[in-house]
């Protein structure tokens, strides 16, 4: 019941926001002081054009974890409707070309998973702790399992 509810909520969020990953946890300090490790971001993806200043979540080929950075340059093609985007973390000194695939100069629309529209501080620490200390994750899962088994509801 709990698992099913969580799954339904997640899928509903995916439908509403139009993004594969409607909520992400900030894992690094590259966007400080705006976003710190442990903040969670709410994402939205729609047909609106990507514009400079927006905080986007994007995938780089060959990297597992999406990156949350700010757009600093946009070139919107006239004929094809494609867009070339350059990003940078607020705290970083250089743009993100070093993070892209070698030789790639721009992100395109298909790399972008969503844009940040809101956030909550600190809430994501649970996820980070569980990821970095697997033993805690197993303890929590065992405890929850035990609760479910012994529950008289």
């Amino acid at each position, binding site marked *: 019941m709990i698992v099913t509810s969580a799954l339904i909520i997640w899928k509903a969020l995916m439908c509403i926001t139009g993004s594969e990953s409607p909520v992400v946890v900030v894992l690094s300090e590259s966007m400080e*002081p*705006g976003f710190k490790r442990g903040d969670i971001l709410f994402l939205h993806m729609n047909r609106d*054009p990507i*514009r*400079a*200043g*927006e*905080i986007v979540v994007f995938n780089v080929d060959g990297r597992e974890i999406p990156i949350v950075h*700010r757009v*600093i*340059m*946009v*070139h*919107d*093609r*006239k004929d094809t409707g494609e867009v*070339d985007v350059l990003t940078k973390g*607020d705290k970083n000194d250089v*743009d993100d070309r070093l993070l892209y695939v070698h030789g790639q100069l721009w992100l395109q629309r298909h790399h972008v998973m969503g844009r*940040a*529209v*809101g*956030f*909550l*501080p600190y809430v994501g620490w649970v996820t980070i702790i569980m990821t970095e200390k697997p033993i805690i994750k197993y303890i929590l899962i065992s405890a929850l399992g035990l609760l479910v088994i012994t529950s008289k509801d």
Partner: protein
Amino acid sequence: MHSFGYRANALLTFAVTILALMCAMASVSDNFNTPTPSAQVQVLNINWFQKQPNGNDEVSMTLNISADLQSLFTWNTKQVFVFLAAEYETPKNSLNQISLWDGIIPSKEHAKFWIHTSNKYRFIDQGSNLQGKEYNLTMHWHVMPKSGKMFADKIVMPGYRLPEEYR
């Protein structure tokens, strides 16, 4: 019924609900703010204007940027990210947005500022379209709350023009 576990669960659920409600109310209260920011930019000098070996034009310029963004701050505001972008159209691209300068304003006291600087990011065209090009300078800001929804807006300042010749 009324076991310790039930009571702890109910208390925790209630606490988290109240916390979420407080965050939502804090975020919603930002909608009642009606900001009236102002901004002004002068291009004092074109330091450098050349075509790169790869064929793209590049410009370096000295800017005088002044702005009063104090009205963007509410009690829920953590910071304001402000940046200045050059925006123009070329035969190939319907919109080019190049960020020239950006800054993070941590508090209301810092929100009225005057800055004399050259462009922080390289102003490089995708091509060789900048000679004599007219462009807008647009000041954008993104208001980051302590929690909740982020807001963005801008002031468009038209009428800037690059030189006809390289220098």
